[in-house]
């Protein structure tokens, strides 16, 4: 077992079905149209040096390290922003490129702290990797020039005057630290917050050399719109944005893939460990629900497992006014069983029941109902999921024969219209909401049927049609929608005939077509 290293292809995967063949470093490679040269090279096994590119977000073209040479084209284009074309002949390494890359790295390092050995990113720093990759040996500019590194500038060496470019660390967020002195302004964090999460909490403040990452309008991270999803920390190639747990503990050494139990999305995480200690939880790119994204809960809020207030020993008491008494497991279990049996003896077998949480695993829920049925001898067992889902479960199983979800989260990337009713993903299933919002920003339409202006309606850069229905009128609204579809001839008859019993459909259509179900009819 060791740390799972996921390949970062630099730019997102293209969905095109037409393929393009080109030559990179003498090797022919065939990739979908729309793939960047950088990604094509990576898929062929060649890593072009990069700092601002990462495959969770679109190409940006700012670091200027990934320059390549293309036969027949002048100059040295960036491979991240250049799409493949049939017959291109690309060289990723040459004397000219080596010189340019060294020149770029020399500039980066001239404005960066040199404390690699004590830095939290030691061993996991892309800037370090790139300096090594391009063979940087010295920084001829020295370190007395303008910089963001030192709190005091060396110009006035006697006292050292304040360095206006320097900003102190922002440790406001309980889970991660922002250290502006290490920022290389690759904008990966800004782009992750925009493209992956969709919160738009980050920007670059200032122009030119002054550019620094800024949450909101130069607020602290905690004071800004940031929702602590951790996408920026994941995207950051340096120690600028780092988990506090990594700063305290050090680098992890092996990963275990697991599933977050906080909500119904079920994000897949790599629990990165050192020995038995969890160092950090990082989203797993192959997770089919989350595809490498997370929210604050699974990403950071796992401290409860080792919280000092967590109760680790069983305790009992006779009355609620009594203090808790620590006892052995056997004594506690016997005490509880005896008390429950006593209640049943006094009030009857049905006087005891149990409820399992929808956040329990299937296995845990099985055990609870087994205890109730076999142990207490009754059927008084329920799950809180029933409150949310018995209507949907009933409706779906009646309609489709199964009450599970009808499609995977990936399908949201191809949708054109989304209708949300009885749900608020932005609040309840944030990672799914982020994936949905990304599709909405690409132009898909959103209808939200909810009494409240939910967070989905208020999301930045998403235009929602909000139908604020009166609480309790969901059925009436949906029937009114059905009425319009049926009476205006909008139903796709071929689709319906293929999949449904036509006479049953006609019965239903006749019902919804009744005048009393039209949207114009006032309801009393």
């Amino acid at each position: 077992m060791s740390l799972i290293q996921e390949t970062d292809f630099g730019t997102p995967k293209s969905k095109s079905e037409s393929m393009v063949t080109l030559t990179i470093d003498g090797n022919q490679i065939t990739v979908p149209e729309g793939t960047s040269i950088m990604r094509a090279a990576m898929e062929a096994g060649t890593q072009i040096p990069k700092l601002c590119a990462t495959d969770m977000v679109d190409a940006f073209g700012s670091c200027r390290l990934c320059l390549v040479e293309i036969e027949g084209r002048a100059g040295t284009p960036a491979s991240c922003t250049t799409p493949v074309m049939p017959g291109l002949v690309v060289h990723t390494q040459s004397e000219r490129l080596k010189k340019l890359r060294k020149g770029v790295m020399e500039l980066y390092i001239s404005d960066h702290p040199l404390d690699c050995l004590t830095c939290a990113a030691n061993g996991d720093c892309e800037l370090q990797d790139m300096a090594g990759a391009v063979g940087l040996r010295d920084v001829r500019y020295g370190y007395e020039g303008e910089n963001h590194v030192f709190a005091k500038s060396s110009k006035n060496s006697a006292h050292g005057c304040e360095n206006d470019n320097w900003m102190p660390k922002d440790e406001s967020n309980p889970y991660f630290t922002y250290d502006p002195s290490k920022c290389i302004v690759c904008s990966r964090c800004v782009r992750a917050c925009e493209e992956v999460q969709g919160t738009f909490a980050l920007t670059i403040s200032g122009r030119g050399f002054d550019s620094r990452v800024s949450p909101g309008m130069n607020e602290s991270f905690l004071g800004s719109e940031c929702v602590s999803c951790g996408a920026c920390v994941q995207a950051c190639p340096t120690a600028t944005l780092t988990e506090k747990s990594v700063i305290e503990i050090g680098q992890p050494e092996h990963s275990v893939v697991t599933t977050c139990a906080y909500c119904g999305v079920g994000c897949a995480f790599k629990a990165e460990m050192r020995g038995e200690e969890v160092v950090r939880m990082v989203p797993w790119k192959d997770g089919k629900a989350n595809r490498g994204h997370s929210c604050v809960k699974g990403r950071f809020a796992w401290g409860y497992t080792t919280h000092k207030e967590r109760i680790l020993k069983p305790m009992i008491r006779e009355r609620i006014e009594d203090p808790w008494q620590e006892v052995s497991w056997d004594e506690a279990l016997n005490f509880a069983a005896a008390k429950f049996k006593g209640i049943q003896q006094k009030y009857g077998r049905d006087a005891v029941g149990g409820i399992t949480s929808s956040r329990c695993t299937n296995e845990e829920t099985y055990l609870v109902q087994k205890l109730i049925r076999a142990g207490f001898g009754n059927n008084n067992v329920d799950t809180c999921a029933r409150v949310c889902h018995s209507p949907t479960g009933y409706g779906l199983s009646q309609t489709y024969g199964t009450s599970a979800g009808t499609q995977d989260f990936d399908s949201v990337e191809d949708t054109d219209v989304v209708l949300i009713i009885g749900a608020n993903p932005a609040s309840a299933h944030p990672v799914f909401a982020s994936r949905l919002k990304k599709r909405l920003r690409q132009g898909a339409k959103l209808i939200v049927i909810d009494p409240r202006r939910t967070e989905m309606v208020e999301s930045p850069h998403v235009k929602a049609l909000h139908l604020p229905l009166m609480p309790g009128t969901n059925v009436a609204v949906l029937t009114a929608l059905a009425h319009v579809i049926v009476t205006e001839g909008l139903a796709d008859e071929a689709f319906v005939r293929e999949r449904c019993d036509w006479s049953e459909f006609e019965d239903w259509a006749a019902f919804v077509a009744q005048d009393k179900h039209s949207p114009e009819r006032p309801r009393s």
Partner: protein
Amino acid sequence: MTMRIFVPRDAAAVGVGADDVALAFAQAAAARGAAIEIVRTGSRGLCWLEPMVELSTAQGRVAFGPVTPGDVPSLLDAMAGNGQHALRLGVTDEIPWLKRQTRLTFARCGVIDPRSVDDYRAHGGYRGLERALTLTSDQILADVTASGLRGRGGAGFPTGIKWKTVAQASADRKYIVCNADEGDSGTFADRMIMEGDPFVVIEGMTIAGITVGATKGYIYIRSEYPHAVEAMNAAIVAARRAGLLGKRIGGSAHEFDLEVRVGAGAYVCGEETSLLESLEGRRGIVRAKPPLPAHKGLFGRPSVINNVLSFAAIPFILDNGAKAYADFGMGRSRGTMPIQLAGNIRYGGLFETAFGVTLGELVDEIGGGTFTGREVRAVQVGGPLGAYFPRALFDTPFDYEAFAARDGLIGHGGIVVFDDTVDMVKQARFAMEFCAIESCGKCTPCRIGSTRGVETINRIINGERVAENLAVIEDLCNTMKFGSLCALGGFTPYPVMSALKHFREDFGPAPARLQAAE
């Protein structure tokens, strides 16, 4: 008999007192009961004669200048009498500096009232659009391409090809964007034409709109040009009233409307993709290309983005035919260039002429050498990112390729003259300083490189390890030239390396053999 007097309202003229002169005329005329009509025009572009006042006479317009309010009483006397005055310059069109020009684009600038559509039409305006409305898109494209017109903003990209790319793109809507950010030091042609003949720009953009299928255009004017903003806005309103903007322009089925948007003090927003970002309400940082704005431009739609002068050249081409324009010029540089003579120059101003005139002719003969009277030592052509040329290169003809062959560039046509008191190492440092101040900050070579460039040149000025630091500068220039995302970082090496090449003596003790440090 009402005397018709023309006083410029151009910002440069106002800067030397034209508004005071106009007021003085009005007051003086009122005081003596003289009947005068004052028409505020653009500038004729003879900046050393501003404020230049003209009087309508039977021989044509007669010019006087430079006029101060104190001269007004005696001028009124002369105008009412025999016209003789110390400040008399003669019939304006006969002034040699003006007469030897080929004003195809600037024909009406300083002549007409820039607020009046009627005055514009009376001087040949809107004939280009009239003809364009009878042509198909392909026919207009053929004319624009055959004219040889290349982008006058600086890149010199063939305008016909750019328009054709947008015309062929399919999208739910397209845009025409006019780049009026004119940030280069020593340039003012865009400002002059917007203030003096705004309708020619509107007409050019309208023709572009009907050619490519765009119904909306934006003019992005730098915030430092408030007079131009006012002039364009007033002209747009007038054009709408005349039915030449909006729906059914000129009675046709075409629709096109314009809006002025103002920048916010960033030179980099003259770069087309950064301009688009700014227009969209975002931070003005540069976009990577591909995609080209012709495919994905403003709001992701196919967009034509051209400089003010490129649009301003179009009406002439459509009115008189491609050949009339292409007949001027040389090589692949066809037509005329409105050259802006500035800096330490005796006769500075707007000189529109065919490509092919040499740099020496422009500086020595037309410009009259320096204002100080000292020797011309260096000339920077093409703005702050242009190369410095010494006298040895004064035989270079004004032509895109000829300048490029000598590691220079024409850019937007600005020429800034320096006399022999110039310190070229400080000019090289200024190039880096300028880049550092104006850098958008997105790409590393420009964001960090420009600051390091200033520091390194400072070491050279202080005599610290000169040979070593010169090698560092050369390496840095290479990194910036080939590594930068846009021409701001990409062209900063031009002034620096040209200063090093042609004025090496200003850079430290002994000339050393330049080689890259390993």
